[in-house]
């Protein structure tokens, strides 16, 4: 998109007023980028048809910095919600898209975010069908906040529920953990360190769909361990259904550079945020086939079986350490804080 022809370089309060400037912003950037039959109706809302059961999920994105290695807030806002819908066992179809922009944001940055949203939506096979743009005074936002809501049609073979989980079920993840959180951490003010760690932000819906096509209701659960990381999500799982989780530290996929960065900052990768990671709990009889299918997909090539469901220690996640000891993995409290020394 050529920014020179837009006629404005920064976004001001007028762009959120609902008047001519708002129309300008919408026509020249939003409608032009996301044009599709639903959005082009330019109604107050969008009228769509989805047959059967639906999954709906909403999420707000407030990340600093908005541009980081491996992505930006725009694609994150698509991937995050698309993945949440996919984790329900649904095929994401539509997204709503709402911006809260801080006055003074450079239009060039805004356009970059919008173009990333478009690219991520296309790659995920979803259409932006309705949206909103508000502008707040300088100091009352952090450049840009984005909310997306996703709508998906349930996969006909899906029967995703924690209630289906039983003793012996296997727990798998699709790849390296902690990449996204450490990529963001490496660029935060005051914590900058040199690394080539990139966010793993990506859409997981096609891999999830392939797994459901192949294995149907033998897949008990999908979860994406975003904030709070793998440790927190597993702890929630154990508590939701009063089962225990046994993990093996040695099997948890962790890229060397991410491991080193966690060591340096004193952070536990089990609690660092992910964006392109999901865990799945499957019937033990299919675990090797599930692993093989995942490893054949670009988004699962580092997949691993990391543990099992047990009834021996209900509500507890117990991890066997590299040296054979055992420890409880408890949920994260507040933000994970870097240690002094």
């Amino acid at each position, binding site marked *: 998109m050529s920014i020179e022809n837009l006629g404005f370089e920064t976004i001001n309060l007028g762009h959120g007023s609902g008047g001519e400037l708002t129309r300008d912003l919408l026509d020249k950037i939003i409608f032009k980028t996301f044009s599709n039959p639903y959005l082009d109706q330019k109604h107050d809302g969008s009228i769509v048809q989805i047959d059967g059961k639906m999954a709906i999920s909403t999420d707000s994105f407030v990340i600093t910095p908005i541009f980081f290695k491996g992505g930006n807030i725009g694609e994150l806002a698509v991937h995050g919600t698309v993945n949440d819908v996919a984790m329900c066992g649904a095929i994401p179809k539509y997204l709503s898209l709402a911006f809260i922009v801080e006055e003074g944001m450079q239009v060039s940055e805004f356009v970059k975010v919008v173009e990333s949203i478009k690219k991520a939506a296309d790659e995920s096979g979803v259409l932006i069908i309705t949206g909103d743009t508000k502008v707040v005074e300088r100091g009352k936002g952090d450049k840009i906040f984005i909310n997306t809501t996703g709508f998906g049609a349930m996969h006909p073979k899906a029967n995703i529920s924690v209630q289906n989980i039983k003793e012996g079920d296997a727990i798998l993840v699709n790849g390296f953990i902690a990449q996204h959180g450490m990529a963001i951490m490496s660029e935060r*003010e*005051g*914590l900058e360190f040199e690394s080539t760690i990139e966010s793993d932000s990506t859409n997981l819906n096609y891999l999830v769909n392939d797994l459901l096509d192949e294995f149907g209701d033998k897949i008990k659960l999908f979860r994406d361990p975003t904030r709070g990381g793998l440790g927190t999500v597993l702890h929630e799982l154990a508590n939701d259904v009063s089962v225990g989780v046994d993990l093996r530290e040695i099997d948890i996929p962790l890229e*060397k550079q991410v*491991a*080193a960065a966690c*060591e340096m*900052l*004193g952070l*536990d990768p089990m609690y660092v945020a992910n964006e392109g990671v999901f865990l799945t709990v499957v019937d033990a009889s299919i675990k090797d086939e599930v692993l093989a299918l995942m490893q054949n997909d670009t988004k699962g090539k580092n997949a691993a079986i990391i543990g099992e469901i047990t009834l021996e220690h209900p*509500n*507890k996640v*117990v991890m*066997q*350490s*590299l*040296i*054979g*000891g*055992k*420890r*409880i993995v*408890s949920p994260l*409290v*507040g933000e994970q*804080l*870097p*240690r*002094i*020394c």
Partner: protein
Amino acid sequence: MKYLSEYRNLEATKKLLDELHKITTKPWNVMEICGGQTHGLVKNGILELLPENVRMIHGPGCPVCVTPLNLIDKAVELLEQGVIVCSFGDMIRVPGSKKSLLEAKAEGGDLRVLYSPIEAVKIAKENPDKEVVFFAVGFETTAPANALSVLHAEKEGIENYSILVSHVLVPPAMEAILDDELCTIDAFLGAGHVCAIMGIQEYVPLVEKYKIPIVITGFEPLDLVQGIYMAVKQLEEGKQELENQYARAVKEEGNASAIKVIQTVFEVGAREWRGIGEIPNSGYVIKEAYKKYDAETKFGIGNIKVPENSKCIAGEILRGIKKPIDCSEFGKTCKPSNPLGAPMVSSEGACAAYYHFSNNTI
């Protein structure tokens, strides 16, 4: 990963643990000084792999845990005065008498979490119309960087930078623990990182005076098991020596340039320890020549004094007299989400380490 994976090796650790089981014939109490070691022991599940006769007692070496309550209140006061306060991450959730730094931030205070005090000097340079204070806590390990930040500020003529100092020293703390009549400690694992800065010579008098083995120990699972093994071996053989398990990082003479930086800015003086009280010659204070970088003097907050929470037994835990699970509040009213005292906040704190990782908690 060199220097890490080798020290997390299952086979090597198991072999050493087997040896430890073989040589242990009597009950021994071994204190690991450093909070990083406590964290390593619990996180790797080492405690349950030790012989029943070897009991680990968690020492006072968590900088967050020994920083007295009134220092937190002083930092909160600075935030409320509009000063930019910069801090290491795990200090910010420690409760003060009224609020934590994090709560003061939520109320509008300008709090920055940093890894390096040098960053704070940069912030001072970029904000010449604001005062910037670095919350300089820690043992000998963090002292060189904190002292260096003062030297940087001096060199660049930065007048709006100062440090709120709560530096404490390991050897006087060990001496205070050994002088306590309730002390049951048979051997120490010395704090590896502290000794990487200071060297090991200052532990010789302790070994001689108290006839107690001290093994300077690292932080990886194999380091910890080897340190415990060396300590127990001495005890079983009736020896009391200073040994260095962590020789790959700790030189006998320490790090000369780091010590020089410390000695330029700081001198040894009395310090208050959370839960222990004031110990003479147990910390660093800013030398007269650098007083203008001392936030307590600069902002007139030296007189803030507050009592500790009476329900919290942090003092006894830090002295190794009680374990976290001996506390009636542990896991009940006192949790990481609502800590009564500092050892429940820092991931190195004995209480938090027990709460997060140990089997004894839920």
